[in-house]
């Protein structure tokens, strides 16, 4: 289905970025919500919902954002659509800095960036008809579509799979899936370049979920949309995304292509998150050992842990993790990771081998096979790298473990797991 050219003000605006060009660029984005107390409402702290993230969204792609509740993914979505004003950092849309634009300044951008909300019940005004809801963007932007607003709205309704004759109905007459379609029609009204969808399917039933996921897919192909899809369901995110950002406590811990991320996750958190998804296959139940159970809960974003934020729950954490925050580095082409001791890759801090006490406790929840396998792959990658660069570090390992000639510190982790009942497991750091 072809979209008719809009013969209004929109067409005179800048042409959309060609596929593959950077549409949205975010650098050092922060949002701290102040906590005020007392008579004078003095600020006593801040919830660091988003605490320094960098990423780009290319035109025509889908960026998926996953993370547990409270990791800042929704706040991130509201920042890039400028529903919230960032505390620090920069948001550039098509090369234009929109970080601190005023409401009036944002208005022309609003037609290019639209949002689909999670809850199809509260995001539609119950007193407005579907026609009013979907035509609101035209009214607000002062756009007069070709053939009149009503005709355009009816066309949009049929695009999203609703009956155009339902123009005069109210939201309560529709089911959850249909309401979500109305939300999508509203987001598409002004022919946006980018659509930010915050948990677009999580409130829907499984069979309806699939309908909406397919609809989003079709619309992207037909209209060349760019999506940022925020969700907590890893299988849905994998299905819809080209690239995926994994967030933890206000930071991006891993940003990678779909294939790389799901085949070989590098951040321990990503690995744990993926292993936690229940697999709908009763025969896999005995393979429970593959699962990595994280201990405890996500720490509070009011006072996040020092260094790497995941170190309090990570089974690989060492001293360096508590002090130095790992930068988000592109370790493999198309795979950025913020970790000192990544999985499936060469260790970034090989000199630091002593596991934290917390990490040892965490490792007890991880099956020995998983640790051994992780050590083996890391060792293999490390050996490859060592062979290639003839890094002297490779020779230091025998003191640590005989199982795997590893530069990495997974080797002691693997050695420790089977022997964790015996005391005196503190491996001396090799120097």
């Amino acid at each position, binding site marked *: 289905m072809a979209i008719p050219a809009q013969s209004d003000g929109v067409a005179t605006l800048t042409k959309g970025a060609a596929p593959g060009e950077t549409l949205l660029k975010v650098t050092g984005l922060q949002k701290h919500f102040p906590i005020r107390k007392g008579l004078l409402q003095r600020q006593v702290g801040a919830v660091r919902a988003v605490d320094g993230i960098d990423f780009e969204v290319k035109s025509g792609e889908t960026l998926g954002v996953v993370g547990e509740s409270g990791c800042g993914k929704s706040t991130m979505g509201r920042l890039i659509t400028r529903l919230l004003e960032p505390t620090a950092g920069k948001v550039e849309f098509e090369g234009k800095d929109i970080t601190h634009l005023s409401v009036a300044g944002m208005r022309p951008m609003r037609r290019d960036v639209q949002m689909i909300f999670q809850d199809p019940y509260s995001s539609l005004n119950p007193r407005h008809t579907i026609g009013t809801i979907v035509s609101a963007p035209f009214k607000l932007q002062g756009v007069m579509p070709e053939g009149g607003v009503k005709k355009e709205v009816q066309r949009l309704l049929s695009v999203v799979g609703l009956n155009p004759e339902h123009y005069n109905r109210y939201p309560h007459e529709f089911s959850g899936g249909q309401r979500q379609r109305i939300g999508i029609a509203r987001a598409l009204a002004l022919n946006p370049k980018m659509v930010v969808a915050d948990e677009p399917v999580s409130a829907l039933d499984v069979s309806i979920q*699939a309908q909406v996921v397919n609809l989003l897919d079709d619309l992207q192909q037909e209209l060349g949309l760019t999506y940022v899809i925020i969700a907590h369901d890893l299988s849905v995110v994998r*299905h819809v995304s080209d690239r995926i950002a994994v967030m933890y406590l206000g930071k991006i811990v891993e940003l990678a292509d779909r294939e790389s991320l799901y085949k070989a996750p590098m951040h321990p958190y990503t690995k744990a998150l993926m292993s*936690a998804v229940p697999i*709908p296959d*009763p025969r896999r139940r005995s393979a429970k050992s593959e699962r990595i*159970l994280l201990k405890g*809960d996500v720490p509070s974003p009011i006072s996040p842990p020092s260094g790497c934020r995941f170190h309090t729950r990570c089974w690989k954490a060492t001293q360096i993790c508590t002090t130095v925050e790992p930068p988000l580095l592109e370790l493999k082409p198309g795979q950025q990771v913020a970790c000192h001791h990544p999985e499936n890759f060469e260790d970034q801090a090989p000199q630091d081998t002593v596991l934290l006490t917390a990490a040892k406790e965490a490792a007890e929840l991880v099956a020995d096979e998983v640790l051994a396998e992780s050590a083996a792959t890391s060792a293999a990658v490390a050996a490859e790298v060592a062979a290639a660069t003839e890094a002297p570090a490779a020779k230091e390992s025998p003191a640590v473990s005989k199982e795997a000639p590893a530069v990495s510190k997974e080797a002691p982790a693997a050695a420790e797991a089977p022997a964790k009942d015996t005391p005196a497991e503190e491996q001396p750091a090799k120097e």
Partner: protein
Amino acid sequence: MTELSKSGAAVSEPVKASQAPSAFLEVRDLKVHFPTDDGLVKSVDGLSFTLEKGKTLGIVGESGSGKSVTSLGIMGLHTTGQYGKRKAQISGEIWLDGTELLSADPDYVRKLRGREMAMIFQDPLSALHPYYTIGQQIVEAYRVHHKVDKKVARRRAVEMLDRVGIPQPDKRIDSYPHEFSGGMRQRAMIAMSLVNNPELLIADEPTTALDVTVQAQILDLIRDLQQEFGSAVIIITHDLGVVAELSDDILVMYGGRCIERGPAEKVFYEPRHPYTWGLLGSMPRLDREQTERLIPVKGSPPSLINIPSGCAFNPRCPYADVPKDNVTRTVRPELTVVGSQHWAACHMTHEQRERIWTEEIAPKL
């Protein structure tokens, strides 16, 4: 587990000798209807199943398919509900350990509730009382059924909190629900429901409100506790992944009726109802290669006031015209045996279903 067995409140056994089933829990033709101004809502319309001790039954279905109404019906929480003027109309039989519950004295059922059968609710924040500490609530749940003093009950509560993995249980017992995180609240709920060592545990969407990492912890906990206590567990969810993790048997509900029931393995590998195929097809899966498109079920779930005539699934079924004479739109299909311990309610013949599944559906999943 302490041996404070069921010695507390004396339970008088009503005599009910007729056709008592051998299964631990047997539900026969359960119907729960709610009269409303718009008509009769047939939330559950003829449901039968059995469950043995130590086994887990997973009930799957979309919202409005009658999953939760079934569980509340078993717990006997419908008739006593004082919401609205009209009560639910319940018929059928629920046999728990040789006793029929629907015809039993409400006082007797109340004594069973919490002691023989307990429930874990979806949202622990609204299921726990915000005004009382976690400890007070667990102690109360215990002392209702056991004549012990507060100290003993408190010790028992600490022990249960410890068992469900709450750190420093002797301190956290004095916390209020709002001081707990979502996962810990759900653990506390589980501790409360298991404090009386119930033989039947009903978990209604126990992990839906939780994050995936916490969900993994809670599912593990439920599985371990079941092995330890040997209870019968009914787990109600819309997530096929959760069901696959825990259940021995699966019951798929649609429009208030069971449309397929069988061992988990069978339902996942040889499903015999088009709706089950639809559920399997609409789920993106992490354990498989990426599929290009999901295969959704078209349309939306039926209204429980106007359940479509014939097979309730017929308006959404891609194979509604396979059986002859428009039978899917006129005759309601009954559950028929399609394998050992495996039933499905569909008009298509065995061969037709076999062929569609192997040729059309299975290759796309």
